[in-house]
């Protein structure tokens, strides 16, 4: 195997890129796509417009100065009754630059929102998106296999939504 260097084992000779620098780089690349940049407790969260999701995702992964090749996690948050109601948080990691970033997307669309999939960019998103579909009811357009994953197939409702009681509907 010749790919032993993927992770950048040495950890030396890497320029320290400040978080502001890349949020600025992102803005310069497409000012319209980035609506907000927040730093909280040392973690940078970049809010991306729903329609730019796929474009930004691809840029984040392929641009060598960013190279966010590892998608750790996708997590949905229900802000019921606010609109846009759902937030998607993509926790990214760059194995080459040892950097992390959270890409946030606010999803409009009421009770049955639809959002684009990032599975072609990061294949690991497959199960994360299925889980979100299962528990939050967000549809991912273009997902190869959008089925419930944790709940039974015939389950009604989306348990992690805020208007779903903890003890369930009886």
């Amino acid at each position, binding site marked *: *195997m010749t*790919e*032993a*260097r*993927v*992770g950048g*084992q040495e*950890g030396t000779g890497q320029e320290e890129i400040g978080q502001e620098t890349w949020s600025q780089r992102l803005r310069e690349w497409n000012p319209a796509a980035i609506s907000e940049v927040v730093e*909280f*407790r040392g*973690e940078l*969260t970049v809010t991306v417009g729903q329609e730019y999701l796929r474009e930004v995702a691809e840029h984040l992964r392929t641009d060598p100065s960013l190279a966010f*090749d*590892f*998608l*750790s*996690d996708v*997590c949905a*948050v*229900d802000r019921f009754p606010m609109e846009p109601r759902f937030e998607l*948080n993509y*926790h990214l*990691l760059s*194995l080459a630059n*040892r950097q*992390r970033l*959270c890409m946030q997307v606010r999803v409009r669309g009421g009770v049955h929102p639809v959002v684009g999939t990032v599975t072609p960019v*990061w*294949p*690991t998103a*497959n*199960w*994360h998106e299925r*889980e979100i579909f299962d*528990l939050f009811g967000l549809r991912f357009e273009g997902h190869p296999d959008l089925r*419930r*994953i*944790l*709940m*039974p197939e015939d389950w009604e409702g989306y*348990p*992690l939504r805020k208007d*779903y009681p*903890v003890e369930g509907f009886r």
Partner: protein
Amino acid sequence: MAPTTTSATGTTQTMVLNMGPQHPSTHGVLRVVLELDGETVVSARSEIGYLHTGIEKSCEALTYSQAITLTDRIDYLAPLSNNLGYCLAVEKLLQITVPKRAQYIRVLLTEMTRIASHLVWLGTHAMDLGATSVMLYCFREREEILKIFEMVSGQRMMTSYFRVGGLALEPPPRWLDRVSSFLEAFPSRLDEYEELLTNNRIWRLRTQGVGVLDPQDAIALGVSGPALRASGVSYDVRKWFPYSSYEEFEFDVPTSTESDCYARYIVRLGEMRESLKIVRQAVPKVPSTGPIRTEAPGIVPPQREKMKTEMEALIYHFKIFTEGFSPPAGQVYQRIESPRGELGFFVVSDGSPKPYRVHVRAPSFVNLQALPKLAEGRLVADLIACIGTIDIVLGEVDR
């Protein structure tokens, strides 16, 4: 197994077989829907959710401190790692730091957890492949670790020992002696396992070249932990984003470039030795006295003694256990290196005493996605080896 049948038109027919959810080598309640051509796996689809208990939903109905007990139950083979991940996330939200003594004890115990978890993995994985005696030895050593956990926290498995701001209890006197005697005994035991397996011809035949996962695929599929490192990517959260004073400990990150089941076995055995190294450094580092909890009125329960003499302490104690504490609104993602990989806790606060959302990035859940990549095109018997080396815990997969 039915032989490959050829129909009149000359096309090959495949057979669909359910492996699990009640199958000893699926390590719990994993169901794999196999499409078989003879004994060759054409496709393997994991069906999960049999152990889904809605832990993330339940957390939203509990206060921040109460939710700690649920984190034990996510990955029941490494409860302390889960406690640590969650507590660190909440501590990050609250911006409190934990006293050094508590940090070292946390490191010591999570590394013991790693050894205990890897022992269960080794024992069950070896048993799946027919080496039954290894399992008995592994459980003997794990028992010693569980006894240390019991000594410290009062519980063998569902410890809930780490709390927001520090530890639950003062560890009993002379507990480190017990850790030291474990440290003395364990290396030779580890050599014993290696003697049984590492150069064992059957073991090598069953694992070498089986379940190869290219580094590119591993990264694309989000695989982390020993499975990723066995593919040559040295991503270890303890080194990359140190937490709980890991930067003060010297240890190596075992990697391999073979990317097969045998490589994952070698990497995990190496990790056990590295964990021993960390524990060995931690034992003299842990001061015998000193605070185990940070001073944070209104967040961390006051000392028992203070409650008897100070009015404020009594009030805080009452408020912490009736209302809980309210971190400022915001969201944090805390990743730690659990025995299975990157364990992430995403905690969202809306400024109330209950978490608005707790999400667990469960390494088993993500790693299990790689199963088709490992097993497709190989024999059913190899699938068993592959499931074994991914090291899944279904409690964590399904949450």
